[in-house]
């Protein structure tokens, strides 16, 4: 039982880290789209974010997994399961992160841009040297919220039968008529989130050297 749950844990952790690594940068790109001067790009980004935030992640996972077959008749292989989960999670979380980035970027004082312009920094330099580091500090608390939700959301991968933690727990519980796997799964998610909270707090402390 423990072996099976352990394997599930690894899959859950994989979903978690891959989603973070891919959706954080994608969210930043999306937030640029959302703030673009081009009206079309802005509108498309806005609709995308609205749909991703307005429909269940579970449904989005089903669409990503079954979509290729229903829409284009492409045969779905079992190795696509995990890929589909990652695609679904990344697309969904990027939308949330985009709005967090946007809030942070728009909260920056205009004076920072003006000082950078007067000093001759290029637009790219201004963003990555001056603006973005300060944005990171400001958005850390809402990002922590999302990351904690992500830990628990990894359990949604069970809808397309990816054998992550929750899927394994459910299977074992049904086969052996016992609550124990659920208890272990619960402890796993909780401890994982304790770790997340600990790391994020460290990060916040590290950025505490300035206001």
């Amino acid at each position: 039982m423990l072996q099976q749950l352990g394997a599930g844990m690894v899959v859950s952790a994989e979903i978690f880290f891959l989603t973070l690594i891919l959706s954080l940068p994608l969210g930043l790109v999306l937030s640029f789209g959302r703030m673009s001067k081009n009206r079309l790009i802005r509108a498309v980004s806005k609709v995308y974010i609205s749909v991703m935030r307005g429909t269940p992640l579970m449904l989005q996972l089903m669409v990503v997994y079954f979509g290729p077959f229903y829409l284009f008749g492409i045969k779905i292989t079992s190795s696509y399961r995990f890929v589909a989960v990652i695609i679904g999670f990344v697309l969904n979380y990027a939308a949330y992160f985009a709005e967090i980035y946007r809030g942070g970027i728009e909260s920056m004082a205009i004076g920072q841009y003006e000082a950078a312009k007067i000093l001759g920094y290029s637009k790219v330099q201004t963003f990555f040297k001056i603006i973005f580091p300060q944005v990171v500090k400001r958005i850390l608390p809402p990002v922590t919220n999302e990351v904690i939700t992500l830990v628990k959301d990894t359990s949604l991968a069970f809808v397309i039968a990816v054998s992550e933690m929750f899927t394994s727990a459910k299977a074992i519980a049904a086969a052996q008529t016992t609550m124990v796997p659920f208890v272990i799964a619960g402890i796993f998610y909780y401890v994982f989130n304790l770790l997340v909270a600990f790391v994020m707090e460290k990060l916040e402390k590290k950025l505490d050297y300035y206001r």
Partner: protein
Amino acid sequence: MNLLEIKNLKKSYGGLTVIEDISLSVAEGEVVSIIGPSGSGKSTLLRCATMLEKMNGGELTYLSEKAAWNGSDGKCVYAPSKDLKRIHGYYGLVFQNFNLFPHFSVLKNVMDAPVSVQGIPKAEAEKTARQLLARLGLADKADAYPCQLSGGQQQRVSIARALALNPKILFFDEPTSALDPELTVEVLKVIRSLAEQKMTMIIVTHEMQFAKELSDRIIFMEEGRIQAQGTPDELFSTENARVREFIGKLTN
């Protein structure tokens, strides 16, 4: 040679005209103070001159290099960005509320632009920055962060930051308006020492006494125009009733 030349500058926001028509030239080594009531367009003039705002009309020239001029369609045309980049290097601006980079140490605030923008080697930029900080009485604050400094110290850092790029002209936009009287003194002292070293400066200020002592020329602005200008003696003994009233109010 005139370092700065502004001809027939016009600026409006929507339907509101802020600058009617201003022409102004500043010679090398000259210290020019701009005074006038709030809303007279002083800060807008500075923001147009430093290209933080786009002019609606007129001509802007630094060191005989045209930055902006009136196009054939009556709209203001700016030089290609390659030229503007070079022209940007001719001047610096000290803001009313400092606008230091809070996540950079004092030293990095001063040396980062020389390294990242001008491509000066790090060691050399650091040496220059430390010298500047020492000159402005901030040698022991190099490793501090802006939030740990008083307003006066922050403003001095921002002056050091501007000087580090070695500008030909330095603009000040009400540099002491965010400071209490005691801190004002220490910032004015720095500006005074720059004047003694013949730094070309254009200063928007409400400090009448300071403007009188320091300036080669004072410009009085109201309603988007230059209403009067002259040497401090000329302006302080003017017959112009409006100027007398304004100066009188501020010096008492």
